[in-house]
């Protein structure tokens, strides 16, 4: 479908990205993913499908994991965004990053930024006692066993099939 003849609409927004205040001008059509990658040059978050189906674009939006490809940048004005570039504390990797290294949680690495941000979100959700679709009693606060990890990470696909390492890494990071 061709774009109509209407001119693009631009908007000024403010985001906190990996701890720094960033002012940017975006086309209202731009996704948060495009704003991060194209406007801010943060190419860690990847564009796998651009339809919410693969998780390669996962970032932490106001502390919660989200697919940046489905979020309009303009709608996130005022939000806090953490990308894979912001997970480490300087040279010190986060526990999730360390665990992915220790357990070979990747092969080609394309899905990895999304896996790392998603796993970071999973640990926070589990720490708050959130149940999942495989939790037998949703009123309980389930321990993060392998079945729970697999279900909670199911929004992140890996074409290389590094799933065994990913599950082991999340299991270790959860300890």
């Amino acid at each position: 479908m061709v774009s109509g003849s209407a001119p693009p609409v631009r908007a000024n927004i403010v985001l906190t990205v990996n701890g720094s205040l960033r002012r940017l001008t975006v086309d209202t059509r731009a996704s948060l993913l495009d704003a991060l990658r194209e406007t801010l040059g943060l190419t860690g978050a990847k564009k796998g499908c651009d339809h919410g189906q693969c998780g390669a674009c996962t970032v932490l939006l106001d502390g919660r994991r989200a697919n940046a490809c489905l979020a309009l940048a303009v709608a996130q004005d005022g939000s806090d965004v953490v990308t894979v570039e912001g997970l480490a504390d300087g040279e010190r990797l986060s526990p999730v990053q360390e665990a992915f290294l220790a357990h070979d949680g990747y092969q080609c690495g394309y899905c990895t930024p999304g896996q790392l941000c998603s796993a970071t979100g999973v640990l926070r959700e589990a720490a708050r006692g959130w149940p999942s679709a495989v939790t037998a009693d949703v009123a309980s606060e389930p321990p993060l066993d392998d079945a729970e990890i697999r279900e909670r990470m199911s929004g992140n696909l890996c074409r290389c099939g590094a799933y065994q390492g990913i599950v082991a890494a999340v299991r270790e990071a959860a300890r």
Partner: protein
Amino acid sequence: MRPFAYERAVSAEDALNRHTDDAQYLGGGTNLVDLMRLGVATPARLVDVARLPYDRIEHRADGGLVIGAAVRNSDLAADLGVRDDHPLLAQAVLAGASGQIRNQATVGGNLLQRTRCPYFQDVTKPCNKREPGTGCPAVHGDNENMAILDPSPHCVATHPSDMAVALTALDARVRVRHSGGEDVVPLARLYRSPGDDPSRDTTLRPGDLITAVEVPGRLDMPARYRKVRERASFAFALVSAAVALDVADGTVRDCRIALGGVAHRPWRAHRAEDALRGRPATEASYRAAAEAELAAAEPLSGNAYKVTLAVNVITAALAGLGEDA
């Protein structure tokens, strides 16, 4: 994508005022942004309603809920009161999409998400829902995942929401704000059959704003959401069932049965419920009740399997509850 203006509404009133003929409300955007990218939705203006102050869940003493339309799906499923009083609802929400999407998606947007019919999503194909009068290629085409109950020759699409199936079993209602005031609409009247106008998924008029979902007091019977899909997680339902069962002295006193993946709307299985009340709580009764519902099925060339699947899912879900009871 067509350029569009973006505005953030600060109140329901403000949202209604900002909504023009070529506008659409924006929730989490997880469905609408995708459809805009595909060229299926072409609004000239988005009115963002995700930050309206409808982000709380009110709990009544009897377990009743008032869920704000801007509550995120994940927060609904994580709410302790919801998990205690309406586990069926938490299960259905958790059965949908992924952790990321549930963090973004709002309750209002979940209810009004559009069908996943592949022709609807492909602007190079005809589709009565997207472009009225162009025809429905799914009737004789790729229809494995289409409706088996209450289909129309004009559209055989299914409604994709898991949450809406549980809410249908729970007799939930939506609060709708419009220029003339507020209506409270039962889900059974919110969703509609395709008939000869499949372009409308619901009975809402353009500009109507959902502000909340009301759930009546807790069901005093065990309940369960069962979903069958092509892979273990992160896929839409082929068939799903929200069931509840009240058994006393081996007899079914009361029950609730709603189905997903079988019709243009979340499907309340009234025939099955009527067939089951007063019957012995046995697998044979559950199956007979399921068959009573599915007797009306009109499968297409590729989806007769759903009739068997729906009978089996209902039977197994009820049998699972019968054991708890």
